[in-house]
């Protein structure tokens, strides 16, 4: 080609040569590019073959209906020949509800199911603040979920009506003022508590009134004494309310105007219901504590900072299991003589503290990611520390931290299995153990593990994927 060259006719694109096309190329590039890769491929194939050939017959010989393990074994022997092994899923058929609900009364299953559905609705405003479309879709999903699960668990008509009312109200709220949905999120904990444990409606209402008292006291004093002092006064007032007024008022109200759900004791909780209850409660209560700890850790007040760092490092430095043992063995040493409350509650308290320490670190990351300019602009506008935190800093920091909070939650949720060691009925070890204590199922090993493991996988994998999606969305989101 000479130095002066001008093309008159453009060349059309050509298809690549055979080696660059189709299956051959795919194989060559993805499996056999070079000797090392070929070896890897072969090794991988051998591994897959070994795994499949070891496990496949067992899966293929699965038995779905039997009364006991020995019957399972007989059926396997009859169909697949003597000495063959097979899975005995009949156990799951008979006992699945204990893995899911523990000993929760079957006629009340609709309550946790409803609480769980509303949880998703309550999470909506946190995940999609103010996004009408997403919130509407979410409510649609919740409604569909509730219709299906409520009818599956045989909920009474009242439950359907209540659920419908709540969902429709939320739907209306979303259309009119999406921000208002946060109100539902705020009252959800009380609602959830009431649905799960039942009892008088006044228990959660009066407990929530404590927060109202806190707010009222704060509002009344803030003008005169400034935010810090009035916040403290508010907290003190609320604590006094809970300590001294809560029970008598509840009692009085319950006597005057009854109404409530059948109460369910904590020890009837078990399986995934227990795991989710502990996980969700702990993570939601740990969020405010975690925020305070993170702010404390960022503070330039030495003592406050030291206390926060000390607390965080202590909790993060010891295994969760020792904290659980603390809940079951030591807490009663630390509390006034005679106090004695539910083991689940004690476990939740310790797990909450545990989660709070981890969340504090997560939120600290979010705080650190904010540019200094945001603090300065808030200062320059005359916002005080707490207002600046509440209006400017935390909304942004929390949004950045959502993916990390979700992974903390996943870790926590997996860790709820450890409550088995203090005698609670977690799905993995607790329920499995009582199932195996049944003479019919004594000696069954793999099936409950696989069943529980699969459910854990679905939940955790789903959540981690979702948080990755969220992370990507937040990154590109121009807001």
């Amino acid at each position: 080609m000479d130095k002066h060259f001008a093309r008159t006719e453009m060349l059309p694109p050509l298809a690549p040569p055979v080696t660059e096309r189709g299956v051959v190329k795919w194989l060559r590039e993805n499996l056999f590019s070079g000797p090392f890769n070929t070896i890897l491929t072969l090794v991988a194939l051998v591994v897959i073959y070994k795994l499949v050939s070891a496990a496949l017959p067992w899966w293929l010989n699965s038995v779905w209906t039997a009364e006991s393990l020995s019957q399972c074994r007989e059926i396997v022997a009859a169909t697949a020949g003597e000495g063959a092994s097979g899975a005995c899923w009949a156990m799951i058929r008979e006992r699945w509800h204990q893995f899911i609900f523990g000993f929760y009364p079957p006629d009340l299953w609709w309550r946790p199911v409803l609480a769980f559905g509303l949880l998703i609705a309550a999470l909506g405003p946190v995940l999609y603040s103010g996004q009408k479309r997403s919130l509407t879709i979410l409510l649609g999903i919740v409604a569909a979920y509730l219709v299906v699960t409520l009818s599956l668990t045989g909920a009474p008509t009242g439950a359907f009506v209540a659920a419908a009312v709540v969902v429709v109200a939320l739907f209306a709220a979303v259309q009119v003022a999406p921000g208002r949905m946060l109100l539902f999120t705020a009252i959800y904990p009380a609602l959830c508590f009431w649905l799960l444990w039942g009892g008088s409606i006044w228990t959660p209402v009066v407990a929530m009134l404590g927060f109202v008292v806190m707010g009222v006291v704060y509002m009344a004093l803030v003008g005169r004494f400034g935010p810090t002092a009035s916040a403290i006064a508010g907290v003190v007032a609320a604590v006094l309310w809970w300590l001294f007024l809560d029970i008598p008022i509840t009692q009085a109200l319950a006597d005057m105007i009854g109404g409530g759900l059948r109460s369910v004791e904590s020890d009837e909780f078990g399986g995934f219901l227990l795991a989710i209850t502990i996980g969700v409660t702990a993570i939601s209560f740990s969020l405010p504590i975690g925020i305070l700890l993170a702010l404390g850790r960022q503070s330039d007040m030495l003592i406050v900072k030291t206390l926060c760092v000390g607390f965080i490092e202590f909790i993060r430095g010891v295994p969760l299991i020792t904290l659980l043992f603390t809940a079951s063995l030591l807490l009663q040493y630390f509390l006034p003589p005679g106090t004695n409350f539910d083991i689940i509650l004690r476990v939740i308290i310790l797990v909450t503290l545990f989660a709070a320490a981890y969340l504090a670190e997560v939120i600290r990351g979010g705080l650190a990611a904010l540019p200094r300019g945001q603090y300065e602009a808030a200062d320059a506008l005359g916002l005080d520390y707490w207002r600046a935190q509440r209006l400017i800093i935390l909304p942004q920091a929390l949004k950045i931290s959502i993916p990390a909070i979700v992974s903390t939650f996943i870790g926590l949720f997996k860790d709820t299995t450890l409550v088995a060691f203090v005698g609670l009925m977690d799905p993995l070890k607790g329920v499995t153990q009582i199932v195996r204590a049944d003479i019919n199922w004594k000696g069954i090993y793999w099936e409950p593990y696989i069943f529980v493991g699969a459910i854990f996988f679905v939940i955790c994998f789903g959540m981690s994927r979702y948080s990755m999606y969220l992370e990507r969305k937040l990154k590109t989101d121009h807001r």
Partner: protein
Amino acid sequence: MSEHAIDRSKMKVSDEVAIQISGMNKWYGTFHVLRDINMTVQRGERIVICGPSGSGKSTLIRCINRLEEHQQGQIVVDGTELTNDLKNIDKVRSEVGMVFQHFNLFPHLTILENCTLAPIWVRKVPKKEAEETAMHFLRKVKIPEQANKYPGQLSGGQQQRVAIARSLCMKPRIMLFDEPTSALDPEMIKEVLDTMIQLAEEGMTMLCVTHEMGFAQAVANRVIFMDQGQIVEQNEPKEFFNNPKSDRTKLFLSQILGH
């Protein structure tokens, strides 16, 4: 600069003292960043501060609304001395508006929310009223139609104008500007300067760190030149540019006007 001739009718300087700084010194650790600053700003004055990078201009301006603490001397803003007393600080900050180089808008709030936040929470203005005020100022900076967008959706020049509007919503008596145009593309600088000129025309007391000498000549009634933490020279713009006294000023002007 601005297309229309600048209207100086309202740009009157009163006798009242807006800012009084005397014998002020500040250190960062052992580094003496501001040295014996003495300065009086009358109400209605428009002062431009210039000087080489690192000379302490930003620090000085940030001391005035106590984003930085000074260690010696006195700063009195609108009759309130800046001491450790939080009440005084709050008072001064609500009198003084500030515009930053990097806008520092709140990205999670809409433009309107950005503007109403401080009036509502600090001045306790009813939301409706705050929104009306905000729209008024947004109209003034010529972007009322963006009120419901988020800062991320605006160009730099628009963002800076929102930042100015946000400050104005607090109805400050003094405005501080810290290089408001230096993070902007050339086309956008003009929009922002126009807004500032408009402010000046309405008689706002302004302290402005900037290297836009055109702006200084057009609206300032005093130019302060700083170097190494000291006020080296101050004068009327005409005198300052045409007849600088100090060698350092001459050097600086030759560099900055050179290209």
